[in-house]
């Protein structure tokens, strides 16, 4: 009896991660531009609040992740849906010249803004041309 229960539990926990993998994810639309000081990224993530947003840098990979929270009345049935997932996910690789320690993130009206500055030594320096 006990053995059986344990076995059932084990199967459950093994199934869970696999199901998570199949969860549909959306790729948020982004604008990315670079200026002298660094790179700025804007990402559309409607429905995501600050508490459900995760921005992380691992090695040279920057990843953004968020869960949209949509208030729905009980017993609601879908009639039409352009959006069929609640999870956003996208990642980018960064060059070594980016200062990953100083990434700044803000979120307003469902738009994430990230500022990734360049390391001081990589910021462009003006070279004066002397006219001889």
């Amino acid at each position: 009896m006990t053995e059986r229960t344990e076995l059932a539990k084990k199967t459950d926990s093994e199934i869970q991660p696999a199901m998570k993998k199949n969860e549909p994810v959306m790729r948020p639309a982004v604008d990315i531009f670079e200026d002298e000081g660094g790179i700025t990224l804007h990402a559309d993530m409607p429905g995501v609040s600050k508490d459900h947003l995760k921005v992380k840098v691992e090695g040279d990979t920057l990843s953004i992740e968020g869960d949209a929270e949509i208030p729905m009345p009980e017993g609601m049935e879908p009639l039409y849906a352009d959006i069929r997932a609640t999870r956003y996910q996208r990642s980018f690789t960064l060059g070594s010249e980016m200062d990953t320690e100083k990434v700044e993130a803000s979120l307003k009206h469902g738009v994430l803004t990230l500022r990734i500055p360049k390391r001081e030594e990589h910021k462009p320096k003006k070279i004066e041309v002397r006219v001889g």
Partner: protein
Amino acid sequence: MFGTTALFDELQRIQQEMDAVFGATPWANGIRSSTSSFPPVNVGTAAEEVDVYFFAPGVDPTSLDISIQNNVLSVAGERHIIREEGASYYRKERFDGEFRRTFSLPEDIDPERVDATYKDGVLHVRLQRKESSKPRQIQVS
């Protein structure tokens, strides 16, 4: 509403790609549908209400024009993206410009009882059904 119907997702993706390449799909479009799919819309129905969600991030909510006429819900607005001058752009995927999306509502909507909220970039329009059309329990005597 957020079902995991992978087959439909795949079909939708194919349709979107075809739209992008050919401009239009061979089958008929809704007369009020537009080429722009911004903002994406989800619609759900419940016993007492119909809920319409417009996924429109980065929009000034006071600039949105929401109206109902002849049972058609229409939302118009503009998202103006300020481009940084002198910066080099690598990606410009986000929608920029004016938009309008319309949706035909079920017949029994009460146009007097509608409210709209904008939170985290999602415009949620709640439309109540008319009293007379709510499901009633009928007792057998």
